[in-house]
């Protein structure tokens, strides 16, 4: 299973490097959204809860928009059939796609978060705190990756694919957003940051675990015919 998952992941990364369909579009969307927020909120500097909210909601929307491509490409080029014909374990596809989405999100954040810090964030936290920010984002990305893969697979074979994925995915992501926002907000104040309430990391962890289990149990049903 691991080898098949690695093979699929490598293929997806190679395809993304070569065609660049997903990450650049998500990045562009994110940066544009920051600009929209600046003008919409009429603020040049954000901190604390407002900053966490703008950053996280933008990332969430970007991820859900990018998620439709995850399986759509397989759908269009018949890659799904090719995988189903092989003796590879079905779960390998779930693991590979979730891992790919996680890496895409990480790549997105590597660009988006510094830009956010520069153009929208106020004085902002110290260097060490950024590590904690990264940790929270990583936990969130895990949840985004699993839910995104599940929703993408669900939407891939439907008619209004680009609409179904967001409207199903976004409500599902609300608990993760709540937890991430509450965890992130204290860190985005200038100077001495607030402590991250461990409770919210626990909620994020619970969320990730529950959805990972659900995805593992249900994914096969989305693949067969």
């Amino acid at each position: 299973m691991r080898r098949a998952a690695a093979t699929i992941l490598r293929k997806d990364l190679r395809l993304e490097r070569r065609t660049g369909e997903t990450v650049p579009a998500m990045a562009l969307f994110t940066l544009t959204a920051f600009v929209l927020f600046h003008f919409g909120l009429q603020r040049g500097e954000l901190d604390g809860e407002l900053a966490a909210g703008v950053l996280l909601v933008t990332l969430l929307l970007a991820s859900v928009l990018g998620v439709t491509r995850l399986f759509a490409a397989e759908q269009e080029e018949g890659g799904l059939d090719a995988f189903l014909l092989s003796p590879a374990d079905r779960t390998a596809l779930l693991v590979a796609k979730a891992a790919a989405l996680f890496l895409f999100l990480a790549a997105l954040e590597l660009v988006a978060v510094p830009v956010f810090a520069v153009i929208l964030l106020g004085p902002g936290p110290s260097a060490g705190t950024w590590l904690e920010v990264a940790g929270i984002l990583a936990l969130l990305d895990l949840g985004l990756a699993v839910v995104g893969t599940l929703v993408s697979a669900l939407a891939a074979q439907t008619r209004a694919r680009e609409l179904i994925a967001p409207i199903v995915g976004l409500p599902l992501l609300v608990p993760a957003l709540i937890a991430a926002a509450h965890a992130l907000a204290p860190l985005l104040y200038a100077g001495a940051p607030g402590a991250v309430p461990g409770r919210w990391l626990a909620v994020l962890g619970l969320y990730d675990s529950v959805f990972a289990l659900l995805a593992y149990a249900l994914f096969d049903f989305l693949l067969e015919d």
Partner: protein
Amino acid sequence: MGAGAPPAIEVAGLARRHGERRALSGVSFAVPAGATLAVFGANGAGKSTLLRVLASLLRPHAGTVRVLGEELPRAAWKVRGRVGFAGHEPLLYRALSPRENLTYHARLHSTGAERVEAVLAEAGLRARAEDPVRTLSRGMVQRLAVCRAVLHDPEILLLDEPRANLDPAGAAALAPLLAGRTTVLTSHDPARGLAGADLALGLAGGRQAFLAPAAELSASDVERLYA
């Protein structure tokens, strides 16, 4: 092919719905190991559906399907590595090269890289092995698709209109790769289809119109399906 050896493919009373419509109904046949079955029928008669059921891409809604002694879909996982399928779609990534595509499939099937090179050479695709698939002609794409189907050296081969888009050179290049396997293929060319087959199955509206050794049928028997 010894006498008394179980058939490579056994289908009995196969039925498959597509929504309200009957895509396949009451289809029954057996293909001995090493034999070739040609499936004829007009568009929409159920040929592609039948092949996809045999490939375990679709599950039967009624009846039994046995491939290499294993019942589908329950034991499909046991035979996936021993069946090759080339359908309407080439199942290739257009942005990747032939070599990359075949290597990907080889790894999924736990097949070695040498086999990829051997198949590329045999099919005459060595020269274009590094170019993205979207730059290849339709004939070459079809050749590559068949390569993908035989890459893991399957005992059973399922080909949906294998001659589509192929030039005579391409067909000739592929012939050795296809030989020696139990084959089920669909065909729109009655004369040629019958010539290359041991058994012939005719489908009309999902139902079995005829099943007979190819030698006993003439092209006009098949053409009646298109009336």
